[in-house]
């Protein structure tokens, strides 16, 4: 139960941080951490299938797509203001 | 006995996927062939429902609540027939419209196929989670279609539409999660008696979430902000599909939930609130339609207004005598059908006028009356339904709604309907007047292929004839 409460606190903290931190890159990294914590939560909920899918798709692929978008954004910024 | 229900879902899934693999040429021909087939399937299903009442189909043979059931009653059959009837002429129209835009056409067919599969699956589903999946399929297909031709305007509209539709389906899904939590099932058939027996407060919250999400997807005032740019900015065949059918799919679900699943817990206050939002939509949408300078934006705001009439159904049919409720219910469904046919014709006609003149402002369509009289005639016929003049389907629908309002002594809805009718007459005549103005000598004019004109006339005529054969449609509705 204590582990669950800690995990829940970490989940909420990473979600709030991902939504409010000023730096976009940091926000995406926090979102990936959030995804991995979600995978842990699924494991705690006796849902190993979702844990696998969440880690691979929710954190992994979504994270990769978001990181790529941030990189694209930064590239555009540099082009606009050399 | 042959059962058309699974085929109505499989056919568009199959042709959409094959159209993606094979490319636009063969894909387009396959699509048209399958659409003709689907229209006959829907007709067969209608006959079966009239003869034998509600039909169920247990996918996988398990049956609810373990498996997923398909269900066809009068209402879903009307929606299925309407959908196939509108899409077939629009398919011919789209082939002519996208000539010379190979890349758009390459993806138009698969996206339209999935859109159609989503709608047919939605109308046939009797499982709230399965409906969520069809809603997402529908939303993503619609967004893909809006963004099809690109450009800053449509892409922005598509993005806004996507965010709105995702917020809507998320609210719906949370409602489904709560329902599963309370009752342990997501089947409409299993849930209905359970809700009637005992509904804790959580169920009311679930109902509010699901209805709000669907209202956002139906673009009911004040959630209409995403609709005009999306419907006005999309290519004309897409605008026609979206305005005529896609928003009706989520409205159909609202009807299904309100009068079926949540019937034991809905209140007259909530119904009056929905009616008030509908009245707001009629007045505000018509007013803004009148102020538009671009043809397709005018037609799009007209959709915002016409959606309002649909929601007048709730205060007129909730908690009233059976006779009044019957009349309101018939009027509401007839309005869905009439507006679907008329708005498909109107958007298609607007697209044809824009193609012919090369300009999308209302001021640019001068001379249309002499150059493409057939298209303008179709636009005017559709306008008759939108205004609600006899003998159109729109008249029959609004007459039934007026009758229900009179019988239940809710005169305020009558005022709204009359004012809305006058405003819609004003914006339809604003277009017609401009079309009859003489052409400037310098204006260039493109000749239209026949297939860009005749399907429109067909749709407009259907919306008019509906006023005469409305009884047939309503008898199908009563069969269940």
């Amino acid at each position, binding site marked *: 139960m204590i582990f*669950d409460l800690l995990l829940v606190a970490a989940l909420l903290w990473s979600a709030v941080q991902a939504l409010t931190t000023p730096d*976009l890159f940091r926000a995406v990294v926090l*979102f990936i951490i959030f995804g991995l914590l979600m995978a842990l939560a699924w494991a705690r909920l006796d849902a190993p299938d979702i844990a696998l899918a969440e880690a691979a798709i*929710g954190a992994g692929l979504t994270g990769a*797509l*978001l990181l790529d978008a941030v990189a694209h954004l930064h590239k*555009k910024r540099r082009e606009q203001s050399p | 006995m042959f059962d058309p229900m699974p085929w109505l879902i499989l056919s568009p899934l199959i042709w959409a996927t094959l159209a993606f693999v094979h490319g636009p040429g063969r894909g387009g021909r396959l699509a048209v062939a399958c659409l003709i087939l689907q229209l006959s399937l829907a007709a067969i299903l209608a006959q079966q429902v009239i003869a034998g009442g509600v039909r169920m189909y247990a996918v996988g043979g398990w049956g609810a609540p373990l498996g997923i059931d398909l269900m066809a009653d009068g209402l879903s059959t009307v929606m299925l027939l309407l959908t196939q009837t509108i899409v077939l002429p629009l398919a011919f129209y789209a082939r002519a419209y996208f000539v010379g835009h190979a890349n758009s056409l390459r993806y138009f067919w698969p996206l339209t196929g999935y859109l159609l599969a989503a709608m047919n699956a939605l109308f046939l589903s009797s499982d709230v989670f399965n409906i969520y999946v069809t809603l997402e399929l529908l939303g*993503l297909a619609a967004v893909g279609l809006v963004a099809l031709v690109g450009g800053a305007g449509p892409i922005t509209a598509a993005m806004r539409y996507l965010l709105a539709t995702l917020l809507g389906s*998320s609210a719906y899904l949370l409602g489904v999660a709560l329902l*599963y939590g309370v009752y342990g099932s997501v089947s409409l058939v299993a849930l209905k008696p359970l809700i009637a027996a005992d509904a804790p407060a959580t169920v009311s919250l679930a109902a509010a979430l699901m209805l709000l999400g669907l209202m956002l997807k139906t673009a009911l005032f004040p959630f209409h902000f995403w609709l005009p740019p999306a419907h006005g900015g999309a290519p004309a065949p897409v605008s026609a599909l979206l305005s005529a059918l896609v928003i009706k799919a989520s409205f159909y679900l609202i009807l299904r939930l309100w009068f079926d699943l949540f019937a034991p817990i809905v209140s007259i206050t909530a119904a009056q609130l929905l009616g008030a939002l509908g009245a707001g939509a009629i007045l505000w949408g018509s007013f803004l339609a009148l102020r538009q300078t671009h043809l397709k934006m005018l037609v799009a705001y007209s959709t915002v207004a016409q959606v309002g009439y649909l929601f007048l159904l709730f205060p007129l049919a909730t908690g009233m005598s059976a006779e009044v409720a019957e009349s309101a219910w018939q009027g509401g469904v007839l309005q869905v059908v009439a507006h679907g046919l008329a708005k498909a014709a109107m958007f298609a006609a607007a697209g044809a006028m824009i193609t012919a003149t090369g300009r999308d402002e209302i001021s640019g369509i001068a001379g249309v009356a002499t150059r493409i009289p057939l298209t303008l005639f179709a636009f005017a016929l559709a306008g008759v339904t939108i205004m609600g003049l006899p003998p159109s389907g729109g008249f029959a629908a609004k007459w039934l709604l007026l009758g229900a309002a009179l019988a239940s002594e809710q005169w305020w809805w009558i005022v709204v309907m009359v004012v809305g009718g006058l405003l819609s007459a004003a914006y339809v005549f604003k277009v017609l007047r401009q079309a009859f103005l003489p052409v400037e000598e310098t204006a260039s004019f493109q000749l239209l292929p026949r297939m860009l004109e005749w399907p429109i006339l067909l749709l407009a005529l259907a919306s008019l004839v509906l006023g005469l054969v409305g009884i047939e449609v309503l008898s199908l509705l009563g069969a269940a």
Partner: protein
Amino acid sequence: MSSALVYALTGAALFVLGMAGLILQPHLLRKILAFNIMGSGIFLMLVGVAQRAGTPDPVPQAMVLTGIVVAIAATALALALARQLLDMNGEMRLPEEKTGKDRLDV
């Protein structure tokens, strides 16, 4: 209170956080992040509430797997549109949300 219910409550909080972020944050990437957090919240609610007695329930678990796939599909489409907007307008925002200097984003 079972631990499944703790997760369900967390799900409710995540849904609210995500919804507020989706509506209030003007930057499209943040809206997309918020949508995903909101989705995770719904999934936690679905499974957490269903398993509140402590026994695993494969039905909502399968539904969540479906939901995760739908969410990545929506996310990818949203990112594609956001990137097009960036290339055309130089910004990842909807035009009506361009004002507001007090916003948190780069």
